[in-house]
């Protein structure tokens, strides 16, 4: 039996994205995983089932994705950092309970390895077609945080970031990985534990005899969280509720709850925004791309520069909340903006909304289970 669990971090490994995701989760302190098999995400569950018990953590294969989502919410309430991993059809099934976690403010992480949809779609081909589902998957107005990595090291780092953001904001966080990133292998140096900054949910500081109000938020709009079993005996519901956690039919309480759930994301936005500018300072043609598509885009930008075209790449790593100001800044000199994605224009909608009637915005879109080659993006940059 290899001693994976006790291997010192800081080691060099050759990992797939799914494996790096598992390593990131473990490094972030995840000790509970519930899941249901589905391509192309299953390796994450498989790896977790091997690693977690060796660390004293728990893995459970649930009867479906609805149950997996419920289980990670329950386990989080009981004090663990928790995660599930799935893909398109499973992500659809998780939406109701994902909304519950947003409403009841329970931190947890959902990995969605995107595959072609709708329906069973293309189970093994790469896709980025769940981008809008990451934003608007569950019903009602709701907060959303979703990240999308491009490299294997970044899968590790963004998985850690997902846990940190979930704990910091008391909300579920989604990692939207495309199948290329999930299955591609790259060399990765796993950072030493001391190099990884971890965030844990803030606990209330109560004076003797003081009542704990589980949904009373201070200035930062994120209520401190006590776990079940720690003595507060509070109530959690998906119904509109007041600061005590009990249902409330009062109009002003409902209104302020829903606004706070969105405002808390807005308020901490700067801490949540991860992105990369690549040669955008003077870019006359800006490419906005994420995930594995951004790797093709970077290559296309280099080739365009070699031809004398001032091209640049803005790469949102945090898809939601959207790095709006950063996109605006990157497009400051742009005549044209190209948005390549393995869907039919889901993030382009956001870019159009942000940049309005400024530059011409074109999409480079593929939904045929094939990656977007740099040459396609280059043609769009050159305008042929």
């Amino acid at each position: 039996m290899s001693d994976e669990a006790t291997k010192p971090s800081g080691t060099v490994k050759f990992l797939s994205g799914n494996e790096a995701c598992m390593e990131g989760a473990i490094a972030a302190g995840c000790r509970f995983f519930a899941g249901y098999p589905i391509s192309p995400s299953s390796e994450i569950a498989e790896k977790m089932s091997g690693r977690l018990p060796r660390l004293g953590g728990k893995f459970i294969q649930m009867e479906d994705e609805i149950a997996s989502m419920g289980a990670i919410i329950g386990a989080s309430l009981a004090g663990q950092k928790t995660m599930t991993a799935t893909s398109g059809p499973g992500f659809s099934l998780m939406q109701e309970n994902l909304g519950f976690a947003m409403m009841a403010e329970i931190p947890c992480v959902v990995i969605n390895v995107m595959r072609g949809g709708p329906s069973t779609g293309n189970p093994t081909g790469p896709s980025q077609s769940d981008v809008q589902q990451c934003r608007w998957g569950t019903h009602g107005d709701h907060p959303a945080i979703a990240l999308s990595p491009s490299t294997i090291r970044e899968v590790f780092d963004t998985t850690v970031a997902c846990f940190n953001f979930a704990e910091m904001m008391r909300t579920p966080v989604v990692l939207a990985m495309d199948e290329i990133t999930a299955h591609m292998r790259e060399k990765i140096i796993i950072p030493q534990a001391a190099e990884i900054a971890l965030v844990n949910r803030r606990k209330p500081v109560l004076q003797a005899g003081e009542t704990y109000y589980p949904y009373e938020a201070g200035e930062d709009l994120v209520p401190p969280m006590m776990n079940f079993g720690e003595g507060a005996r509070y109530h959690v519901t998906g119904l509109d509720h007041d600061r005590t956690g009990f249902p409330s039919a009062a109009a002003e309480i409902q209104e302020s709850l829903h606004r706070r759930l969105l405002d808390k994301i807005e308020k901490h936005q700067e801490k949540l925004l991860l992105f990369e500018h690549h040669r955008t300072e003077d870019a006359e043609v800006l490419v906005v791309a994420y995930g594995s598509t951004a790797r093709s885009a970077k290559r296309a930008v280099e080739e365009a520069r070699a031809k004398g075209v001032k091209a640049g790449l803005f790469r949102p790593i945090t898809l939601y909340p959207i790095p709006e100001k950063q996109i605006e800044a990157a497009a400051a000199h742009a005549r044209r903006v190209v948005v390549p994605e393995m869907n039919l224009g889901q993030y382009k909608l956001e870019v159009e909304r942000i940049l309005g009637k400024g530059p011409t915005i074109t999409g480079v879109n593929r939904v045929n289970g094939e990656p977007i080659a740099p040459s396609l993006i280059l043609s769009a940059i050159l305008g042929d």
Partner: protein
Amino acid sequence: MSMDYFQYLRKEKMPHIWCPGCGHGTIMKSILRALDKLKWNQDDVVVVSGIGCSSRTPGYLDFNTLHTTHGRALAFATGIKVANPKLHVIVVSGDGDAMAIGGNHFIHACRRNIEITLIVFNNNIYGMTGGQASPTTFTGFKGTTAPYGAIEQPFNVCSMAQAAGATFVARALDLDAVAMDRLIVQAMQNKGFSVVDAWSQCTTYFGRPNKWGDASDMMEHYKALTYNVRLSDKMTEEEKAGKYPVGVLHQATRPEFCAEYDKLIERVRPVEK
């Protein structure tokens, strides 16, 4: 029975939402008497529910309480129990919640034999949504979606639980509170997954359309539909036909999920050198 219910109730949440004559309150009180008997620390008890009239119960109880999504209480409860096996986890659910939308979670919780007690507040109807037929509506009985009488066969909650692997299975009537208390205590003491099919009258949506009268008439109807399992041997097949036994219906010893997981950890955890 001189216990002080209010030590376990959130007084300020009263009055409850239930209709006059509804059986749910009777079952809630029975759960409290059982918990009083077990003397568990209130901080260590978690009560989880789905959605429905019955699922409003946790809101009135002074424990760690979680009101989840329709049908999914067992999934959330499984996460809680596995994450912290020291907690005593009780799930309350309706017949629609547990046997229709939550049916898959029900059979798998039974199969895993995880130490959770499920109390199904079984009133043969969807109460909260206004009286639609449920998976336990008896054939021929009316609901708002079965205006001519249900043509489907109902689930037998206890047979399902036993077949799926639950290690304590009982049926109780709210009419006989003493028996219900005893059965719920036994369920909570079982080191595995326990199911109590607790029958409750929905006066508003099952009693009325089926002309079963008021709460006490309804209890008589339910009584006539059941027999004490201890008398089973003395009864003829004709006497039992179409009736449901009440009491402890199944007990077994099987490995419990959390205990097995602990053993797994022991087995695979690297030894400190």
